[in-house]
């Protein structure tokens, strides 16, 4: 049966682990934002080896499970001299995985820019870098911010998979609490409720943002 007493007892520990979950989410998201953009630009590059590599990377990452990628980074790389902490391995793995999805999002934003913008930039003799920095990206990113926000939420909900590489995030904490006390109900319920509250409230925020962007 549900025990409130036990719930209150384990709550502080789970909340502390929530901090890890949230920081892993944001750091991985930052990785995904940056790498995703680089992938998008690399895929458009006229330099064939670069665009082929980026294409290949995207296909590879998308067609293998995140869990396998995490295991690879955390367990296989150390054999080749690259040892990463669970946190670093986790945010790198999660970040790289989602970078391929964010790359698609950026691509959509960029492709929605009318050709006339590129042509005006060229007619004014902007360098390719300035064209991206001043003309194309400032127009293609704002409209996709809500979609990026939804990916942030998706990544947040994906973080429990990081427990597989021993990161003591909220899920791992709940598992450990459960196996100590042989009570799983409270711990996992708390975890579920926390995900629900945070994801739902964030998705409401994203939706409001979307409405505001559409009104502009």
């Amino acid at each position: 049966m549900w025990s409130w007493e036990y719930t209150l007892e384990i709550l502080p520990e789970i909340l502390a682990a929530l901090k890890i979950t949230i920081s892993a989410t944001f750091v991985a998201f930052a990785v995904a934002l940056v790498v995703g953009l680089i992938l998008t630009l690399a895929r458009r590059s006229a330099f064939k080896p670069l665009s082929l590599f980026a294409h290949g990377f995207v296909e590879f990452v998308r067609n293998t499970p995140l869990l396998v990628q995490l295991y690879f980074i955390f367990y296989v790389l150390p054999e080749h001299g690259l040892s990463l902490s669970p946190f670093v391995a986790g945010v790198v793995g999660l970040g790289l995985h989602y970078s391929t999805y964010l790359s698609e999002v950026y691509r959509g934003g960029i492709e929605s820019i009318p050709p006339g913008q590129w042509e005006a930039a060229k007619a004014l003799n902007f360098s390719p870098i300035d064209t991206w920095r001043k003309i194309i990206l400032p127009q293609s990113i704002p409209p996709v911010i809500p979609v990026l926000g939804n990916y942030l939420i998706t990544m947040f909900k994906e973080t429990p998979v990081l427990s597989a590489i021993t990161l003591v995030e909220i899920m791992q904490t709940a598992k450990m609490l459960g196996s100590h006390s042989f009570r799983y109900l409270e711990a996992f319920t708390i975890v579920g409720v926390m995900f629900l509250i945070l994801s739902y409230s964030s998705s409401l925020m994203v939706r409001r943002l979307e409405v505001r962007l559409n009104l502009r």
Partner: protein
Amino acid sequence: MSVPLKLIYHEEPTRSIDNDPRKAVIKPIVTYSNISKSYGDLHVLKNIDLNIAPGEKVALIGPSGSGKTTLARLLMTLEEPTSGTIEVDGEMLWHQRVKDKLVKANEKHLHQVRGNIGMVFQHFNLFPHMTILRNVMEAPRNVLGLSKEEAKQRAVTMLEQVGLAGKIDAYPAQLSGGQKQRVAIARALVMRPKVMLFDEPTSALDPELVGEVLEVIKAIAAEGEMAMLLITHEMEFARDVADRVLFFDQGRIIEQGPPKKIFNNPESERLQTFLSRFNRH
């Protein structure tokens, strides 16, 4: 509508290289040599030869689909010619010479030659995320490398000349079509090109807004120094502004000459037919 215009380009009467007795001594600012452009089986431009003198105002008229826009886009480096060469101010545009061999120009070369050319588009193509001021000052700042103050000052002066000094903090979406096109003209002019291309600058405008844009272009033309290629369906405007009128049809220059001759004594049947469509209304 009258637009206050301070003249920055002055002196030197305009002239047409093909009519000028000093033809041999005037170096053209633009030379198309045997230029062809195809899209697959569609031959849009067929062996075009054309010289434009410095400061010359050339109007390009002709039915839609005849290749006028393509001719301008080749010069703006928005399209690559299928064959032939273009020279700008004595330099190859799409090619460069490497050890006596003509090879395709690299981006650095294109960048350097392209700086001589400016273009005003039918649909303005303003940057919607920037204020009017930034639309005009961003290129001087980033491309010419002017300081922020210099770029701003140049931009404001230019916007004054097109009568839009009061709108510098507005965004393009807040302007009328005529105002947008005047901003686009200022944005191109602020780079001080030697050749300006206007591709039907008033075709996308409501009729009552056409006048203000043509006024601005006429005033710029009157300043003289800059060569202009004007693609237009405004025949009266072409007659007023141009030193020379080219009639284009099916990718060829069918007839050319001073406006008087082209509009009053068209020789070819195609030009006569084309012009009769305009005289009707």
